[in-house]
């Protein structure tokens, strides 16, 4: 087929226009004060200056610790989500349970529930169990958001597993748990990976739970610290954009590295709706 480079040119312009705010964030983070407050604006930050990254992130123990907190909370949430969602998705896809429709209901309804609605009761639960201001409380809270999404996304993957494979495993004396662990889970690995990526992305960016359930800077996630930063730094745009860029970085890396998997997984989920 004839290559349609004209469309490519238009597509490139649209994409560049859409991504301009992201470019502007990174460009600003690489400027010094005089370049930021110049009119007309300096469109290309050349030569780049990394001072803002030092002051806002590298020499800022609060920000570094918050990045660590978010990493712990996000990885913890991914593990918890997979542990709960994989057997649930399998059970509701393959085991011909009675009341499957009814059991799916909480997972579907949860999409409607605003995070802020859960904040007060969760705070109460966590304060009674001594979990307020712990990373564990935020892992538990974030899993409420990721779990329903994970079950809904995984179910179609389980539905596609050929039944003969399970039957063969069962007759070989694997038992149901053995068949699930040794036969089914390896087959749905792409689904598990998609869920892991999304649970990580959602948790890394989560803000409302962190804001309402933690008051101690030592355990707060980086989104809450960044918001606090916005209040403190006001119009110091270079450090603010440097910090924002660093918070965005893990998502961009995941996105670039696993782009095909994520887009494919999402599209599959979207069509299943």
């Amino acid at each position, binding site marked *: 087929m004839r290559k349609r480079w004209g469309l*490519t040119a238009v597509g490139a312009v649209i*994409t560049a226009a859409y991504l301009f705010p992201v470019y502007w964030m990174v460009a600003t983070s690489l400027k010094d004060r005089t370049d930021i407050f110049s009119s007309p604006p300096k469109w290309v930050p050349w030569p780049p200056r990394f001072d803002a990254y030092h002051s806002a992130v590298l020499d800022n123990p609060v920000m570094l610790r918050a990045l660590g907190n978010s990493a712990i909370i996000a990885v913890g949430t991914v593990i918890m989500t997979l*542990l709960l969602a994989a057997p*649930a998705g399998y059970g509701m896809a393959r085991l011909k349970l009675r009341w499957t429709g009814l059991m799916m209901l909480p997972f579907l309804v949860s999409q409607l529930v605003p995070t*802020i609605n859960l904040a*007060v009761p969760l705070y109460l639960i966590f304060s009674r169990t001594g979990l307020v201001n712990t990373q564990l409380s935020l892992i538990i809270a974030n899993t409420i958001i990721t779990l329903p999404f994970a079950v809904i996304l995984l179910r179609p993957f389980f539905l596609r597993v050929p039944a003969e494979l399970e039957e063969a495993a069962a007759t070989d004396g694997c038992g149901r748990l053995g068949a699930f662990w040794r036969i089914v889970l390896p087959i749905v690995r792409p689904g598990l990976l998609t869920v892991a990526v999304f649970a990580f992305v959602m948790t890394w960016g989560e803000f409302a739970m962190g804001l309402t359930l933690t008051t101690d800077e030592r355990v707060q996630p980086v989104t809450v610290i960044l918001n606090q930063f*916005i209040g403190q730094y006001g119009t110091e745009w270079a450090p603010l954009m440097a910090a924002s860029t660093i918070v*965005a970085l893990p*998502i961009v890396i995941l996105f670039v590295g696993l782009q095909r998997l994520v*887009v494919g997984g999402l599209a599959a989920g979207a069509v299943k709706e």
Partner: protein
Amino acid sequence: MGRYAFPAPALIYLLVFMVYPILYTFYLSFRGANAVNFLSGTAPFVGLDNYRAVLSSPTFVRTLVITLTFTICSLAFQHVIGFALALFFNREFPFVRLFRALLLLGWMLPAVVNASLWRWMFSGSFGVVNSLLETVGLGGLQHDWLTDPNTALGAVIVADVWVGIPFHMLLLHAGLQSLPGSVYEAARIDGASAWRQFTSITVPLMRPIMFTALLLGFVQTFKSFDIIYVMTGGGPAGATTVLPVSVYNLSFDYFQFGQGAAAANILLVIPLLLSIVYLWNRRREDAA
């Protein structure tokens, strides 16, 4: 019976950490709970007083209008632009896959990052939106967008549209991919114009997925908290206080937990009713 052990942990998890909090919020909305009696659990029963207080407060109607304005404007632009992009990037040309993937970025980034960068874009002094207006000869419109009560909501909507476009594009593109090519071929042979093909084939066939995108988009946008809270905190002068922000303020700034719970239930019930109506209609359509 052993089979039920598979879904049981996830179900129990949601019952404890989601269903119980929702029921507790319902309970709390009938109690005069405040900072003094909240943790001790001795808040008195007050009947419908909290709902009465929330619904009759002069700011409630304004909050609801702001919430609906935000939701409907944001959703409409997200959907129309997302649909246009889905159509354009549904064609085959070099690098189209790369562009489609890059266009998802705004949706994946943390809301606080997006809010932070849009604060800078809309900044009154040296913000790039003002610079761009100057460049195209509209310097007279230059403005401190987020601190003027007349423009703050519009600025927040622009930011949220930017964030939400990829979601609609993704869903609608998946829908377009599933349309049968043979129908278009037949239409072309009959001499139907591109616009005619769009209105007579694409839109009718896409209707179910459009409704799905709009419903999910409404639910998501109606409960938006992060981007507004970080961009404006609900200000200036309450100009961007949407319902979720007001729920937060009632509970975490004024410690009126009872009224906060009542407002939270109002926030939950509107998308819930909408979803029930949607599912009801869809079931009737499927049956017909």
